[in-house]
Each structure stands twice: as C-alpha cells, then as structure tokens.
C-alpha cells in the first residue's frame, strides 16, 4: 500500500513538471561556441514579460548596466557599465543571446555580468539565494524574446 502510494506520487510529480514544459536544468546547459540554440523551456518566451524582467531591480535588473532606448520613456535610470543594447538582435543570433544571459562567463571569464542561469559556482551566496539561479528558465526565455525585439 505504502509503496503504491509512493509510486503514484512519483508519477504525479513527473507529470506535473512535464506538463508545464520540459526544462533544461542549469547543470545540463551546454553552450557551444558561444551559443545555446535549444530553448530552456518548451513554452515560447514572451517579449512583454521579458521587458518587465529586464527592468525589474529584483529580477534581471539588466538596466543596471545596460541602456536601451526602448525603455527610456518608462525608466529613468539606465546604467552604463555594459554597452547599450539597441540593435543587439541585429548583431547576435538568438542562441548567442541566450548563452549571454545564461552564462556570459563561458565566453568572458572576467566579466562583471552575472550568469543568470548557472548551477552553483558562486561563493558565499546569502542563504536566501544559495543554490538558486537568478532567473528561472522561463524568465530567461522571456528576456531572450525581448532582446530579439531590439532591432534597428
């Protein structure tokens, strides 16, 4: 009885996570030649949500380091630590943009830019954040979708 119950729970959990989308776990990500062509989730990224994540100080906060003209109307402070991202979609493939967000350190080991979807590899993370990625797989896809709208 007990055993069957456990099996049932296991199947149910498997279904639950499978139903949303098969996600690539941070540890299974493989960046090849600076690109990550396979999306992290099955559900396509939503550019509008991505735009909000990009600006949100508690989520992507990409705006802390990057200026983007598209957000000048609504957001007062745009950082200048990294390059402006106007037109990035003309320069990089979607796979390159995804890789850049997931783990920029794979190409640029010394970069200040955080790795938003990387398993571990950090030092003295506060308890609340330890072992967690900065963005979820779906959030990464949303931001990638937003970056793809940045064309000139």
């Amino acid at each position: 009885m007990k055993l069957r119950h456990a099996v049932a729970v296991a199947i149910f959990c498997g279904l639950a996570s499978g139903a949303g989308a098969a996600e690539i776990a941070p540890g299974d990500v493989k960046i090849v030649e600076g690109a990550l062509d396979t999306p992290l989730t099955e559900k396509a990224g939503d550019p509008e949500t991505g735009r909000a994540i990009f600006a949100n100080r508690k989520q992507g906060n990409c705006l802390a380091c990057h200026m983007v003209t598209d957000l000048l109307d609504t957001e007062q402070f745009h950082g200048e630590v990294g390059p402006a991202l106007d037109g990035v979609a003309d320069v990089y493939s979607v796979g390159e943009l995804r890789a850049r967000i997931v783990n920029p350190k794979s190409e640029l080991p010394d970069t200040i830019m955080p790795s938003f979807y990387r398993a571990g590899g950090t030092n003295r993370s506060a308890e609340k954040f330890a072992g967690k990625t900065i963005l979820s797989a779906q959030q990464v896809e949303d931001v990638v979708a937003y970056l793809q709208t940045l064309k000139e």
Partner: protein
Amino acid sequence: MKRVISILAGAAMLTGASYAVAELADGYKAVEPTSEDSPLTEVISGYEFRIKSTQETQDDDFENPGMLLLDQAADQWSVAEGSAEKSCADCHGDDPLEAMQGVGSTYPKFTEKGDHRAFRNIENQINHCRTERMGAKAWKYDKPDLLGMTVLVRHADRGEPVNVVVDGDAEALFERGKEMYYTRYGQLDMSCAHCHEDNYGNYIRADHLSQGQTNGFPTYRMKWQGVGSTHRRFKGCMKNIRAEPFKVGEDDFLALELYTSWRGNGLPIETPAVRN
C-alpha cells in the same frame, strides 16, 4: 572612462608633489597613488562622485549631520566610567582633537604590546581602552557611542592623508584583504574590483560608482539617516550582490579595511563625510 583616466594621469604628473591635489577639467580631484604597487593610476575620494548639494552638506560643519555625533563624543571624552573610574581625558589629555592628532589616519594597524598585541581598527582600539584600561563595557559596533568616538578620532586627522602601513606584521592581512577585494562573492558573483576598480565613474542604474574609498568614514549616509562604519558599508555592498557578509569588527573585514585603506593612501580624511 578611459578618457578620464588619461586626463587625470597627465594632470597628476604635472603637479609632481605626491600629495598634490589636481583640479581636473571634468571636476574630479585626484591624488597620485603613494605606492608603485597600487592598481590605480589616480586615487579619487567618493566625495567627487556625489552631487553638489551632498558635497555642500559635507563642507558646511553646521549642516553636516555627522557633526552631531562628534559633539556628543567630545562630551563623552571626559566622562569617567568603569571600575577604574577613568575617562579618556584622564589618560589622553583634555583636548581630544589635540590628543588624537596623527592617530586616525594610520588605522587599521597592530597596536599594544605582549599579550594585548592585535590588529585593530579605531573602533576596536577604543574598546580595548574601555575594557582593559577603564574596566568598562565595550561599546556596541555601529551604535552611537562607538561611532561617535570613532568619528572624533578620525576627525582629529581631517585633511591629513590616509597613511596605513602594509608591510611588516601587517603583510599577511594585507594579502588577505587584497585577495578578498578581487574575489567574486554572492549570487551576483562580483568582486569589489568589478565595481570600484573597473567601473568607477560609470553609473550602475542610479548610482554613480566611486572607487569605494574609506577616507570619509565613519560617514553620514542619507539612506541610513545616520552615521555608519566602514564595515557597515562593506556589509551593504556584499548584501547588494546577494552575498553573506563577513562579521563587522572581525578579522576578515579588518583585512579588507586595511587593503581598501591602502588603495586610498594619500587621500585627505573627510570624517564625517556625507554620502547619499
């Protein structure tokens, strides 16, 4: 940023004198690093990166809210406390600003002799006098009593160049602090150097990044609505990168304080500085 660096380096070279302050085209004042080993080509106080109204609040002793703590500490100086029933004045003399001249600019450092010898910042030295010499209770870190007395000791050297020594017994701590400075911490995985060496002069969102110098500490900070210690600021920077900070007043932050202070050797002490 690159442009600014070359202008500054040029101006600093022209002045020649090691503590000479160069007024620059873009408004930053810089001093030359005092050591050839410094990673910086220009040493700039956090003051230079603040807006004019903040600078003016610092410059006017009547407006500067940090001065209130200084006044309180000056009164406390002659209050006898502890089992020895002694005041600071009983041993150090009646005028605290005179007694403490040449002290604040040299900390953190090794102090005292024999069993009492240890590496201390000003806070820990004051508490050493309280517990060992006055038989009084140590003051709590980052509370008004200790902050105020620390402000007083530093203020006695206001305008004097930061001058910490990093060789001899301090070398191991210096190396440890240096390593910490370049170590990535926290979920955001950044080092002090990423922001304060590679990016000073740049805006990170709404914040104008400085070199993260300590010459104004303890500092009045508008965000804190009060005065805070160097270690409190370190803690805040670590929390911002989602890291577990080290403990205030203890060895790790003392090592980092030594190393960070050394990067600012030559900068005039501003205590109590005003920051946003």
